[in-house]
């Protein structure tokens, strides 16, 4: 397989086994984190179905994504009629508070004017019946699912946030990036422990990890309330996780520009240093010291680092997935002596190498950074780097088998295990879980390979 990329030094033309999905998928996921919202794709039926399958396979929850079901006539005459019918039908069937539109490559290429179409739709719709409509431009050719996620979050901010909105202003708006529902629930606990009132944008902690209650909820309960997004404009501060944003798609900057909310930004809080930084932000915003509960979790995490260090030092990991997640995990690995020999993503924001520059591994020249890469690139690099383990989504499972090394599943998609919604990555507790899983994967591998098969390792 490695011959596949022998292009004599020229960058490969084709993408083989992509390490990314497309923009509208990320947008639909973000819309799922708004209370009462239904995601709506402006494009052909297949896009909605493929994305639903991808998200349902990962979250194991219903993900209804409506669609304007483009046909050949639409491609010629434009999508106005389909948008109108589609929005009306969704309104009738789902009674949503909001419809979140994500465009597809087809809609963007025929040049549909979304603002005009929505204006026409509003004119044709009886007042009082119409849900709020928010639209994001997310053509597949412009970026990855992570870019689409950020585009939708920015669209929500730009459409809804108001400075000086009535009601009590939140202490902090948290733009959390693509993390798991369990991560979001934990973040809410932390924010509450600091006594901070908050807006999490988006918040799919409940909508994409529902308790079974014997009902198919048309729109799953939970999500950030629309009024809370409006109120975000008068929040005292925002914190944005991540750095890999395309121009104009940093949600904290969008909120600053629109409403003047002071913006703080940091990488995903994975590992002790990044989690410390996050809690320092919260200390400053709340004026409170970190509660004992969290200091204790930090202590237990350090205890685990110490217990595990001999199994970890010098081990070589390949980390892949969304750029911000990769940077977060790699920075954590750097704390425990695991070398993130390959850091790869299908994204191409251009900032990954810079974000990793503070790590010991990078300073020693031990990290190969692959942007805009696919699983053939990652496979070749992993093989050359003699990797001991993979850390990433389930799309690396074939590679793990070929190299005969363990795969620790993080991020998305995880299509081959139960519990993707509950994988934790963030804060002391998320890091604790990652650390346990990584060291145990390595120990298990050593045990399987050891001839006597000792009971103690």
């Amino acid at each position, binding site marked *: 397989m490695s011959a596949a990329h022998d292009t004599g030094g020229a960058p490969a033309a*084709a993408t083989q086994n992509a390490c990314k999905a497309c923009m509208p998928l990320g947008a639909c996921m973000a819309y799922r984190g708004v209370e009462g919202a239904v995601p709506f794709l402006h494009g052909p039926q297949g896009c909605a179905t493929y994305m639903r399958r991808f998200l349902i396979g990962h979250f194991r929850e219903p993900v209804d994504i409506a669609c304007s079901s483009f046909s050949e006539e639409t491609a010629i005459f434009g999508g106005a009629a389909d948008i109108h019918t589609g929005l009306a039908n969704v309104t009738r069937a789902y009674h949503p508070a909001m419809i979140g539109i994500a465009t597809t490559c087809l809609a963007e290429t025929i040049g549909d004017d979304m603002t005009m179409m929505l204006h026409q739709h509003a004119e044709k719709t009886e007042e009082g019946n119409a849900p709020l409509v928010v639209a994001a431009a997310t053509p597949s050719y412009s970026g990855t699912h992570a870019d689409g996620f950020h585009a939708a979050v920015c669209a929500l901010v730009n459409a809804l946030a108001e400075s000086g909105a009535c009601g009590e202003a939140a202490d902090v708006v948290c733009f959390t990036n693509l993390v798991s529902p369990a991560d979001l629930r934990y973040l809410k606990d932390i924010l509450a422990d600091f006594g901070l009132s908050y807006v999490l944008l988006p918040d799919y902690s409940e909508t994409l990890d529902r308790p079974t209650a*014997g*009902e*198919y909820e048309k729109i799953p309960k939970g999500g950030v309330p629309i009024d809370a997004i409006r109120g975000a404009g008068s929040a005292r501060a925002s914190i944005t996780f991540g750095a890999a944003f395309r121009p104009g798609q940093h949600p904290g900057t969008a909120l600053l520009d629109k409403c003047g909310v002071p913006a703080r930004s940091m990488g995903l809080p994975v590992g002790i240093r990044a989690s410390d930084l996050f809690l320092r932000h919260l200390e400053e915003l709340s004026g409170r010291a970190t509660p004992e509960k969290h200091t204790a979790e930090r202590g237990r995490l350090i205890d685990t680092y110490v217990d595990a260090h001999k199994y970890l030092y010098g081990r070589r990991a390949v980390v892949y997935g969304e750029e911000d997640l990769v940077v977060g995990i790699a920075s954590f690995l750097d704390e425990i002596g695991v070398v993130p020999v390959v850091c790869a993503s299908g994204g191409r924001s251009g900032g990954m190498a810079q974000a990793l520059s503070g790590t010991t591994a990078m300073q020693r020249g031990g990290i190969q950074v692959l942007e805009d890469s696919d699983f053939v690139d990652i496979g070749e690099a992993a093989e050359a780097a003699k990797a001991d383990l993979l850390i990433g989504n389930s799309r690396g499972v074939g590679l793990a088998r070929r190299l005969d090394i363990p795969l620790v599943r993080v991020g998305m998609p995880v299509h081959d295990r139960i519990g993707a919604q509950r994988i934790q990555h963030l804060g002391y507790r998320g890091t604790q879980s990652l650390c346990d899983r990584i060291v145990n994967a390595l120990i298990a591998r050593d045990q399987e390979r050891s001839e006597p098969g000792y009971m103690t390792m």
Partner: protein
Amino acid sequence: MKPQETQKPAANSVLDQRKRQVVTKGDALFDIACETKSVAGSVSQRACVFCGSRVVLYPLADALHLVHGPIGCASYTWDIRGALSSGPQLHRMSFSTDLSEMDIILGGEKQLYRCLVELIDAYRPKAAFVYSTCIVGLIGDDVEAVCAQVSREKGLSVIPVFSEGFAGTKKDGYKAACDALGRLLGTGSTEGIVPHAINLLGEFNLAGETWLIKDYYRRMGVDVVATVTGDGRIDDIRRMHGAALNVVQCSGSVMHLAKRLKEQFGQPYIRVSYFGVEDTAKALYDVAEHFGDAAMMDRARALVREEVAALMPELMCIKKDLAGKRAAVYVGGSFKAFSLVRALRLLGMGTVLAGSQTGTKEDYRELEKICDPGTVIVDDTNPLELCAFLKEKGCDLLIGGVKERPIAHKLGLGFCDHNHERKKSLAGFVGMLNFAREVQATVMSPVWQFVPRPSGAAERTP
């Protein structure tokens, strides 16, 4: 359960534009609307033209499958089918031209050319298929010309598949796939093909099912020349016109090819199904009958006797658990729905709802014939409709694909995957036993006792 009393609410959940696509057996006039574009905003479970082409051609394991378009279409179809190959595994790779903004502005022909040359050099496939996605139709790439050029330069068939997603339904994608295969027909030597030789059409070797069926026919004394497309090979397609008969399963997807083979080469075809005991036996007998060979028919009968005897004891045991339970069936192609209704009946189970994404009027008439009175028959349904009928009809099990799974689970119903992503063999006699075991494991699991019943739902069968 008094279905009459709860009839209204479920029917109310059907959008006005879809009223004619939902019918109940026993209605005075059975006239279902189907084969239409999905209603905008209806949250259809359907896919697109590209999906139809991709699923039909996917199992051809020694071909390069290059998706021409932005990344999504290729990313979502990477290694999602359980279609096995006994040799090359090239079909399990996902190749995309991954068009960027500049390609959309300037055209994607150069990128397509570069990708084709690079991938053909790297993998040395027997042929290459280039799938046009939505956007390629719009930006006006001359895919045919690029394919012809690479074909000349590299000395292999490079075949365009006109599968722009918006240009029809999944069914049009099946036709586009058949048209693509049509370019290979009659291009190979038929030397050495015996008189009692057939082709299997519409059999995709999910979990090795093609191998199982080939073995049945081999035991009857019948050779298989080519399978479209399970464990498929390009050279087999080239010589498939030399077989005496086309045996067509999943007729929705490959009927177009069977008809073409009949027109072009005078090859007759029969329609079969390998799901369930009755249908599998019939599939074997029909082939023996076609050849008019008494000895072959005897061998088929002996085979069926032997296989059925082997599975019956366990099947009857399972039936004790399942008798009287009720199922709903919503699948891609309606031919599969017929088989499932019959297979469930063999397990003592009734079917309260049956439907498909892509059935024709004739399909639905046939489905109506084999269903019990009161069965709801749906075309191109959606989560909310499905939910309303599942609740109203009070069933124990939904059979469908991954997208339908959470619908069943949230309602506290069992779910069985009968889609092309499954990894379990459900074909033939062995498959019937696997199916029965799965239904048993699903319906009899103790977990359902903890799931609250939906309000207003009919009682679960005791």
